[in-house]
């Protein structure tokens, strides 16, 4: 099957050429998105099939002639193949309709299939060279998509920042692989797996891998590019970058840490847990402060990556402590959340794209009341918001519940780091979940409820059929994932078995699709029961209301406090909704300030309120580094204007110095 998968990826890579036809953009759009849809669906099925199959390996005579390129399809790669191509198929279906609004389609169509193919290649590569090649291809193609609308203000800066961070991530991974390969210099994953470096080299490789994959996934403090770059791309590409590409980075982390490295030291798990917890809470706090719908979603991606990394950190901790069942539970929770986040974040970005297409705006304070104009979109987004806020019976609840189960499994690991970190992470996770709920109440309430805040929102039209079908499909996936979590947990069992040597007990054998991750005495969950209860209770309530109250309803002007026809500006805004949380949490963390300026008596000018907040990572992390680099570059600028003889002297002196070093230490 692996040759077929590779062939499919190659066709995907080539189908971008069809997007270059500027003469017939409609035909090009249909060809590119249609073929991507078909290929992604096929690849997703192949990934599912690979979950239960033994690993297959293939060597192709590509790249370096005498080394070749190795490819491997094992359960881990199969699971991520499924997630990536599910997201890819959704984005392609959505793009069939949404792509109509694209002002410069050739800038998107040419790179879109290549981006999908590159992500697939990362998952399939089984040597460092092919992996890094695919990784960089993924970065470059997604960068091209980020700067597709490069005339809009800020997008080019976002693209530049993204390119910088992608370079940093590639460099860190390059060095990590260099350490893993060891002195023999074999860059095949099989050789690295056999070599199992230990001690300082392994620890350094792990930290480099964490930096390299974290920079791509949006782990703090390397997340600053993500909320800039993800919203800049067209919406279905934003969905791919946020929902899928970050998962490819998670895959890379799992591949390196759990597969290639073997047993990392226990303190590494503490680092991952700390970063994951901080990322989850700070990400959602920043999401709460946003007014731009897509930026809010991008910050929420940072939060969810934090949750995934908490799960991975737990798995590392339990593994270092010799508890394979706990590790399998935590890993399953993390992977389940990977799938869930891919589904609901894609759905929410499709919804944001639909809102943008219908109203031309992503600013929540220019929206409102869309639930009357875009019925299906608003319902699908409501499902997505519920899922991302971890409400049962939707899928987001199950994975976060499983993560909590993993934390509660062993609150008393012997190492002091875990004694501090596990309870702290439990608290941070709970806080993040609560804040995420508040965040999405805000996002949904301000955008879809209330009255329209602008003419565009008041006259918005529901989007096309392709977009609606995609959103409905993904909303259904959110529900199905929450009702039948046992299917996913059982599907993930081979992955856990391949990486950790053990698996969770089979869930599908249990009656009434109950989920019992470890033991019934501890905890169990039945999504179907909750769903049936909610559905029955709601139906009965609706029935009762219609039976006894509907005939008594009469429509009349609302009581309006003596102000007839108040302006929509008197409603809650995005900022006013977030004000309590901003004051409590962000005042110290992000130095959020409000300045109210009242005009003096007699002055007819308006009163103003100004809100400011700053990003500590930017001000204390990125800005100083950028300053140092700038100063160093200015200092070194002198070197550009030397005489030829000086340059020759530099070459000569460098050569002599190196030779001296060889002579002295050789």
């Amino acid at each position, binding site marked *: 099957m692996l040759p077929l998968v590779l062939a499919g990826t190659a066709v995907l890579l080539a189908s971008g050429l069809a997007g270059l036809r500027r003469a017939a953009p409609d035909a090009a759009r249909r060809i590119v998105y249609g073929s991507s849809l078909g290929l992604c669906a096929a690849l997703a099925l192949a990934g599912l099939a690979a979950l239960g199959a033994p690993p297959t390996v293939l060597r192709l005579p590509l790249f370096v002639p005498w080394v070749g390129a190795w490819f491997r399809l094992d359960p881990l790669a199969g699971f991520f193949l499924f997630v990536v191509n599910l997201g890819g198929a959704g984005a392609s279906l959505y793009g069939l309709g949404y792509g109509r609004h694209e002002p410069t389609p050739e800038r998107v169509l040419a790179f879109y299939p290549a981006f999908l193919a590159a992500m697939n290649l990362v998952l399939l590569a089984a040597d460092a060279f092919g992996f890094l090649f695919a990784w960089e291809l993924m970065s470059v193609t997604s960068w091209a998509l980020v700067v597709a609308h490069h005339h809009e203000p800020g997008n080019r800066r976002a693209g530049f920042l993204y390119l910088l961070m992608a370079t940093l991530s590639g460099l860190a991974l390059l060095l990590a692989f260099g350490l893993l390969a060891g002195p023999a210099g074999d860059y095949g994953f099989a050789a690295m797996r056999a070599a199992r470096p230990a001690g300082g080299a392994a620890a350094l490789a792990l930290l480099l891998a964490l930096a390299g994959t974290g920079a791509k996934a949006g782990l703090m403090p390397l997340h600053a590019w993500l909320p800039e770059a993800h919203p800049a791309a067209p919406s279905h590409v934003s969905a791919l970058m946020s929902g899928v590409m970050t998962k490819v980075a998670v895959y890379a982390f799992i591949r390196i840490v759990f597969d290639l490295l073997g047993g990392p030291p226990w303190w590494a798990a503490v680092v991952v847990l700390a970063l994951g917890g901080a990322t989850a809470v700070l990400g959602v706090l920043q999401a709460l402060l946003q007014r731009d719908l897509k930026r809010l979603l991008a910050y929420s991606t940072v939060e969810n990556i934090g949750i995934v990394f908490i799960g991975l950190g737990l798995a590392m901790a339990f593994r270092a402590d010799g508890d394979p069942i706990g590790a399998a539970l935590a890993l399953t929770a993390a992977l389940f959340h990977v799938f869930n986040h891919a589904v609901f974040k894609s759905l929410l970005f499709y919804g944001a794209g639909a809102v943008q297409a219908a109203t031309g705006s992503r600013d929540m304070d220019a929206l409102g009341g869309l639930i009357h104009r875009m019925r299906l979109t608003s319902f699908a987004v409501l499902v997505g918001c519920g899922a991302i806020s971890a409400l049962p019976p939707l899928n987001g609840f199950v994975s976060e519940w499983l993560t909590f189960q993993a934390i509660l499994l062993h609150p008393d690991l012997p190492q002091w780091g875990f004694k501090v970190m596990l309870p702290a992470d439990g608290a941070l996770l709970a806080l993040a979940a609560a804040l995420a709920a508040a965040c999405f109440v805000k996002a949904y309430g301000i955008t879809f409820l209330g009255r329209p805040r602008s003419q565009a929102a008041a006259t918005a039209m529901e989007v096309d059929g392709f977009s609606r079908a995609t959103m409905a499909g993904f909303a259904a996936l959110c529900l199905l994932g929450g009702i039948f979590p046992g299917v996913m947990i059982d599907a993930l069992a081979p992955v856990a078995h391949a990486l950790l040597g053990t698996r969770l007990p089979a869930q599908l054998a249990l009656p009434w699709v109950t989920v019992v991750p470890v033991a019934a005495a501890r905890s169990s969950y039945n999504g179907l029961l909750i769903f049936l209860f909610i559905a029955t209770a709601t139906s009965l309530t609706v029935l009762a209301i219609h039976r006894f109250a509907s005939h008594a309803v009469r429509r009349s002007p609302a009581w309006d406090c003596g102000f007839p026809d108040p302006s929509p500006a008197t409603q809650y805004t995005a900022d006013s909704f977030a004000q309590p949380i901003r004051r409590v949490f962000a005042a110290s963390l992000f130095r959020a300030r409000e300045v109210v300026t009242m005009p003096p008596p007699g002055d007819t000018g308006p009163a103003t309120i100004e809100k400011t907040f700053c990003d500590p990572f930017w001000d204390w992390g990125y800005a100083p580094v950028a300053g140092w680099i700038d100063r160093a570059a200015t200092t070194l600028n002198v070197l*550009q*204007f030397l*005489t*030829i*003889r000086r340059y*020759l*002297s530099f*070459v*000569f002196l460098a*050569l*002599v110095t190196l*030779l*001296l070093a*060889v*002579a002295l230490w*050789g």
Partner: protein
Amino acid sequence: MGGFGFDVAHMLAGLLVLASLTMLYQDRLVALINVLAAHALILSASVAWQAHLQGAPDLYVTAAIAFGFKAVFIPWALRRIVRELGVHREIETVVGIGPTMLAGIGLVALSLEVMLPVTAAADPVARQDIALALSVVLIGLLIMVTRRNAVSQVVGFLSIDNGISLAATGARGMPLVVEISVAFSVLVAFIVIGIFLFRIRERFDTVDLGALDEFSGERQ
């Protein structure tokens, strides 16, 4: 191969280094070019001896190319250039001859010190050749660094190429194609540099590189 073959090869390589050192203290352009011709002559003799030692007839072609191009044609053309430019009387070294010579001797010692331990397993002839060739290359760089006149920089560049040729022919099995292409690239480089010399002269009325620096673009 007996001791005699090794001795001769060693002597020829040593002579090449000696010629390089001689170049370092020539303070007239014409004399410098004469030494360059001698340098190339020694190189072609060394290559021919390698051909005899290794029993590789294609190295004779290499030797012939070295003789024809490097020992006869290029020096002749350089002499013409010097005469045409009217610079055959001048030369200016940047550092004094004493320190330059000391530096050159130091470079020879350094390259022996570096190369001999590294190539301990290699064939003794190739070993000596490579070590001495590195010193020829380093001295060539030193010539380029210490001289100010464009013509003498060309001479330094050509002597570097001679050193590379020595190292390449010392090792067995270098294909003739490589040698021919290297020879031609040197020729092309020489032609380009020659044309540049005349253009520089036309434009700035001197071939002193110090004068060029005043015109380097974008100086702040």
